[in-house]
Structures are given as structure tokens and as C-alpha cells.
């Protein structure tokens, strides 16, 4: 690799590390979903409509609060901070109709869950995407 390219890549990586990387919304290829719009993703993760366009039930997978991608995800998706999201869900605790997405410890677990479940839908760093899953929406800075 060219040393200047190396430098540029290093700088970009450094930037990505500091500002947060691009995120990818991923599904199982068996879900027969090719692409999701941003509102469709919002409806699924925020409990309004938990069903994939192909008719399958959607199972959104969230990350724990301490995971760096989580804050990034909601900022990019709905421009809300984590406390705002917490208050949103807190409001719905007693009504019971809508529930927050199932939470997992880290992106890797989420990736694994999606890879093994055609209903699952999750978000991970774009860089971590592998062949087992399909990217349906990219959330860029």
C-alpha cells in the first residue's frame, strides 16, 4: 500500500473512531428484504410497526446503553439523544402495548443473532458487516 494512502486511511480511521463510524442496518438474507427506508426502520425500532415488508414479523435488536454504536444509531436515525429515548420508552412502560427492542450486550452478538434469525433486524458498524447478513439501510454521517 502506498504510504500516502496508508496515511490517509489512518487519518480517516482516526476520524471515524472519534466521530463514530457509519452504521449499517442489517437483516437475515432469508427475510427476503432487499432494502428498508429510514421511516420503515424508525417504525420497527420505535415500536410502531414490527413487521417487515415481506410480511415476516420484525424483531429489532438494540444494544446496551454502554455500547458506542447505540447513541450513534439513534442520533443518526431520529436525531434523539439516549436520555430522550429513555424517556420515550419510560412513557410506554405502563401502557404495555409497545415494548422497547430486545437488547444485547454488543454488536457482535447482534450480528450473530441476525445471522441466525430471519426475523431479526439490527444495526452495527458498517465495517463489521459480513456475508451472513444483508445491509438494508446505511446510516452515514
Amino acid at each position: 500500500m502506498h504510504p500516502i494512502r496508508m496515511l490517509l486511511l489512518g487519518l480517516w480511521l482516526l476520524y471515524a473512531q472519534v466521530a463514530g463510524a457509519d452504521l449499517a442496518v442489517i437483516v437475515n438474507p432469508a427475510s427476503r428484504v432487499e432494502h428498508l427506508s429510514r421511516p420503515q426502520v424508525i417504525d420497527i425500532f420505535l415500536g410502531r410497526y414490527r413487521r417487515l415488508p415481506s410480511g415476516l414479523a420484525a424483531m429489532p435488536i438494540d444494544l446496551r446503553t454502554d455500547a458506542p454504536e447505540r447513541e450513534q444509531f439513534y442520533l443518526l436515525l431520529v436525531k434523539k439523544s439516549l436520555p430522550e429515548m429513555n424517556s420515550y420508552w419510560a412513557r410506554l412502560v405502563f401502557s404495555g402495548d409497545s415494548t422497547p427492542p430486545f437488547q444485547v450486550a454488543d454488536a457482535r452478538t447482534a450480528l450473530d443473532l441476525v445471522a441466525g434469525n430471519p426475523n431479526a433486524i439490527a444495526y452495527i458498524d458498517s465495517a463489521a458487516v459480513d456475508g451472513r447478513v444483508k445491509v438494508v439501510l446505511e446510516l452515514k454521517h
Partner: protein
Amino acid sequence: MPDSIVARTTLAILALSLLLGAIFALAISIRVQKNEEDRLYVRLQELLSTVESTARVTCYLSDRTLAKEIALGLLSNRAVAGIRIVAGDTTLYETPGAVRAATGDSGMRVISRRINSPFVPTERVGEITLYASQAEMRAQARRYGWNMAVVLGLQVAFVAAGVALVVFMLITRPIRSISNDLHRLEVRSGMRLRVPRTNRSDEIGRLVADVNALICGLTTLLDREHELRIEHQVQERKMKLIFDKAETGIFVLDSNGIVQSWNPAFVRILGLDERMTVAAAPQRLCDLLAPHERHIGDLIQRCLTTGQPCDTDLEITRRGALRSEWIELSINPIGPEGLQGVINDITERKWMEVSARRLASHDALTGLLNRQGVENSLAELFGRSTAARLSQVALLQIDLDYFKEVNDTYGHEAGDRVLCQVARSLESSVRLSDFVGRYGGDEFVAVLVGVHDPAKAQQIANNMIAAIGQPIDIGAGNCAHVSASIGIAFPSEPGETPDAVMRRADAAMYEAKRMGRSRACLASLPASSQSNRVATVEGSST
């Protein structure tokens, strides 16, 4: 108390304040109601705003439970009659009957708000509609307005009461105190009004001071007036005494000459009825002095016109009196409409004047005219008679014969008796229109008026001689015998003086003496030779 200024003032202030307060309160209540209604509307909008974020979530998730919660929360406000929350095509919550009521009845006010997604601000996820009960809003606004009105009314009432109290303390109470003082005040007692303690230096204090000054002045005036009245009474009594007891008749006339008042002397002098009173029919002065009616009228008129006192002497005859009386009447204008007059009885003075005049022209012994009297009478007769009338006047010169002897024999007293008797005889021999005089001594004169016939004159002379020739009683049983020689003359030519005629009669009388006494001789005409002849005879008289 309705007459009390305090009560009236207080009532007036309270009534006025309450009326104004009520009007203001009503106006304010109406305005406040309107404002309050608008304010309630705004508040409902705000209410919607407070639930908006929850409503977004609710509509976004189509969460009926949340929708119901929001609706119940909103409905706890009494102005909210109904809520409808719609997410997309789904009605999440709707108060039963609210929509029907809202569409059918104008008593509902509808506030709708579009609800957007909490995550995609441009995406509409539903709508929340609030049905506000206008009646309830109005009722609330009215309650608020009424509360305001009541508060305002109370405030006005308290202010009015305060004002009434202040007016009472500062104005009406001092005035009542002054009024009570004035009511009890007796001016003569020297009492003064008290200045109310709180008003020493204000207008009420000054008023009291001025009233006191007035009272003080009034007291002085009253005292002075009292003194004057007493003085006047004294004067009046004095005047009354003078008026009643005066010898002078005093009276007052009005401008028509009617006697208004009079004193007893007036009644006495005029010989009026003593009982004459003012109450009787009014008497005019000229009626009381009837024969001088015109004269009195002129006098009053002159007096009123000139404004000067006027007087006159009048001869009156009292009712039933034989002799006439004389009064002096003076009238003097007093004021524009009245006259004061006095009358004095001047009968005595008049008689004295008459007797003085008589003394000058009459012989004291016989009462006949004296030389002066005869001459005056003749001068008057000759002065006013025409020549034709004068030719009818006969002058007789009468001289007694032997009178000297009577005087010498029996004394002067007897002589005087003879002279008096002769005078009576002469008087009885002539008519009343003729006159007889004594020239002095035993010399008499008679003037016969209207006699032109010498024979007639001769006859009268003869009668005289016969009467005189009668024996005359001279007292002490003695009688005197005298006779008379008479000369008769007629004025014979125009311009002849009485004196000249008398001289001719005198000459004729001497002729009679020379012819032997006790006879009458007719004087010759005034020829110069005859005059001379008579003149020569004159020298040899007795």
C-alpha cells in the same frame, strides 16, 4: 333623622356610590367575562400544548391506553366537554356523543390540533380535537366576572362609607353643632357660638367667627334700638300731653283734605260733637268750616303746591251759638301726602281789635261817632257815591242851647247825662242807614242818606228839636231843659268837599241861633257872597 343633614349626606353619598359602583361593576363584569372567555380559550390551547408531546407518541404508536389517559387528563378540566384522538384513520379515543354534540350544537367550541410524528417532524400521524363547552366557559367567566364585581362593589361601599364618615366628621358634625348653638342662642344674653375644635382655622371656623361678629353687631343695634324706643316713648308721652292739653287745635290732613287725627282742642274750638271719632265717616276740613269751603280748598291746594306753610283768619259760627267766633288756621305740609294744621281761637283778639278801632272813631261818652269817625264815614260816603247820589245826602249841624247853664248849675255829671240823652234822642230820630256823631262839647252832627227834599230834612230836624226839648232826668229829682239849633246843608255842586258842606251847615246853625234858637235853618247855596256872609256870622257864635 330624615331631616338631619348627616343622614342625608351619608345616604346621598352611599346611594350615589352604590349606583356608580353597580354600574362600574356591571361594565367591568361584562368586560371581564369577555376577557375571561378568551383567556379560557387560550388556556385550553395551552392545555393541548402540554399534552402534545405525549399525543405525538400516542398517535405515532396508535396507543389507545395512552390516548385514554390523555383524554381523561384533559377532561378533568370542566371546560372540556369532549376529546377525540385520531391516529391515521383509527380513532384512538372519543368522548361519547362529543362529536355529535359538536356538529349539532353551536354551544361547543372545537379546537383541533394536527399531531406530527415525534421522530419525523414533517410526518402527520394523527389529530387531537378538543370540544370546549361554551356554556361552561361562560359560566366560569361569569363567576369570575361576578367575583370581580362583588369585590369592586365592596371596595366602593367601603370607600363610600369612608367618605361619608369623613364628611360627617369634618363638615356635618361641626355644622350640626353650630346649628344647635344657633337654635338655642339668645342674642341679648351675650352668648356666642363655639368654634368646633377641629375647624378653628378652616372655612367653618371663619363662618362661626363672622356669625359671632354679626351677633355682636346685632346686639349693639338691638341695645341702641331699645334705647331709642324708650326715648321715643318718652317723647311721645310728652307730645301726647301737649297734644291733648294744648289750647291750640292740632290736626292732620291727608292730601284730599280729610281730617285724619285731631286733638280735643280742635273739637272744642270748632264746636264739634265731642264724640267725633276717626271711625265715623271721614270729615273734610272744608265741610267742618262750611262757609269757607272754597277758601279752605284753595289754601290746601296752595300749601301742597308751594310746600310752604299757609295761614288765614276765618270767622265761624258755632252750632247754636249767637255770636260769631274768629279762628286762625295754619296748615303746613308734612311729607308728600299729608298736612298738619293748627287752629287758634282768636275771637278775643279780634274783639280787641274791633274795640280799639271803635275807640278811635267813637265818642266815649255817648257812643256816637266822634269827629274822626264822622269824617271817615263822610269821606267814605263821598268817595264811593256819585254826584247824583250825593245830592240826596243831607248834613245837619246840631248845637244845644242853654247847655252851658245846665253844666254850670248841675255840674259836669249832669251835663254828661244830658249829652247822652240827646245822643239817644238823635239816634231815635234817624233811620239806621243814617249816622250821628258828636264833634265835641254840645256840638252834634247827623248825616241823612237818601234825603234830597229840604222840607223832609227840615221835618226830621224839627223832630230832633222836639225830642231834645223834652225834660231830661239828671238825677236827684232834677230835670234839665235844653233845646237845639240845627243847620241843614246839601252838597250842591260836584267836587264840593264834605268839609265845605259841613261849614255851610255850621253857618246855617248859627243863623238858627241868631233867629232865636230851637229852630232849624237851611243853608244857602255856596255862592261867594253868601259864604262871606256866613263867615261873618261865625264870629258871633255862643
